[in-house]
């Protein structure tokens, strides 16, 4: 099947079905503050891919091993609305992986100042980031990571008097201090390219998602897809990802 794909033939010839360059992202549209029931939210459109991320906050008990820190929970729903391949029911393997890769990009970059989310020795803020796929047009992880981080940057801490939360009123911005950006680099044959469409995604040999912080630290890596990557090629993957993460960061925050 792979061999007869139109996208495959094109990529082999150095072209893409939508005439993009190999290192071009599709048109990115980002809106924040779009869900008024959420403490923070963002909608990302990346070509045909559309994702909404919402941030909700509750008061909870700290984990025993991090008694002075808030709690971060990232969840992704691949709703059947978004693709004929998604099914109802418990989160699929891909949805779990997406949520966990986005989670690590946020957590390991120290994007949120978690210590500032401690309320008292028994209470901390729990930050829920829910990623809702509206249309699956490929490259979900990059788009989901943008939506999640943008929603966090948009989020406010609800008013809390030590006993109950007053929804709709806020006491402060959520302390979000870093801007990690994840870029997934794909390989087909000798070619590296970014931001795959759904069709391209189905024919890649291998994929590597890399999250960079604005100070050039790598904060998460995840190889996806069944193919392997030659040892020597990794360098190129990293370079492409770093460059594109800077481009995206500029687009998003400047």
């Amino acid at each position: 099947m792979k061999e007869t794909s139109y996208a495959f033939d094109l990529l082999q010839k150095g072209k893409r079905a939508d005439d993009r360059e190999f290192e071009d992202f599709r048109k990115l549209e980002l809106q924040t503050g779009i869900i008024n029931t959420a403490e923070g939210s963002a909608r990302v459109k990346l070509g045909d891919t559309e994702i909404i991320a919402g941030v909700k906050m509750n008061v909870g008990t700290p984990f025993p091993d991090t008694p002075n820190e808030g709690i971060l929970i990232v969840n992704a729903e691949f709703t059947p609305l978004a693709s004929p391949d998604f099914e109802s029911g418990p989160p699929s393997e891909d949805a779990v992986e997406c949520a966990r890769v986005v989670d690590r990009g946020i957590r390991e970059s120290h994007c949120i100042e978690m210590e500032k989310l401690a309320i008292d020795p028994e209470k901390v803020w729990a930050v829920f980031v829910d990623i809702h796929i509206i249309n699956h047009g490929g490259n979900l992880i990059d788009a989901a990571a943008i939506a999640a981080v943008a929603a966090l940057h948009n989020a406010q801490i609800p008013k809390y008097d030590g006993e109950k939360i007053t929804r709709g009123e806020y006491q402060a911005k959520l302390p979000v201090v870093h801007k990690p950006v994840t870029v997934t680099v794909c390989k087909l044959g000798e070619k590296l390219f970014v931001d795959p469409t759904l069709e391209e995604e189905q024919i890649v040999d291998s994929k590597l998602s890399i999250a960079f912080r604005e100070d050039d630290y790598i904060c998460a890596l995840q190889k996806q897809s069944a193919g392997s990557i030659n040892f020597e090629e990794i360098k190129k993957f990293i370079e492409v990802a770093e460059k594109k993460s800077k481009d995206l960061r500029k687009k998003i925050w400047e």
Partner: protein
Amino acid sequence: MGGKKSDIELLKGGKRTDKRKPEDLREIKMEANVVPNADGSARVQFGNTIALAAVYGPRALFPRFMQEADTGILRTRYNMAPFSVVDRKAPGTDRRSTEISKVTRLALSPSVLLDDFPKATVDVYMEVIQADGSTRVTALNAASIALASAGIPMRGLVAACSCGKIEDTLIVDLNGLEDNFGNADMAVAMLPDKDEISLLQMDGLLTKEEFFKLLNMAKEKCLQIVEQQKSVLKKLYKVDKEMTE
């Protein structure tokens, strides 16, 4: 749905919490073809309530033992995003969404003609992404546009509206506060072109007279809503036509 007591004044000088008069709908926005992957889709907004619907099908139904030999079947799923409500909703199906998935399927069933698609299914997925009352009717309005835009043969569009009672005043298109703290709320779906009711649910306390008045108010609004659905579909048809010309 509601009926809880509260100190909230739902009516002040004849105006509702969002400044509407009792018989006013909120601002309604409708848009078709919002989910490129789907065969048909729509986004409908009633005030701050936003629902998406996508239709996939007719497509083959598996496992086989679920197939009907002489007709296609309709399946529906109603779901709320975790962030769509003020207190985060845990992901996954709960009893409320199970019931709404069923009643919305029954509400759409009289409108679709699936006899020509034996062994197939038409799947309607509804997602509420922001909730401020009247979510099931908003989702139904989106689902009906989605079905039509997917080219599913239909006897007519389904239009839906909520109505209810706050402090003895009859109102339409309940917002979240009215839903939670009002005295009765009712969900109505119709095939306005056929004068048929396809969804009817109520909870609260109503006299028969109030019930019939409300039903008439809801009908009037459904007739208004269906025109807006039609105009969205007409625009779509025009766009399609222009594109093919």
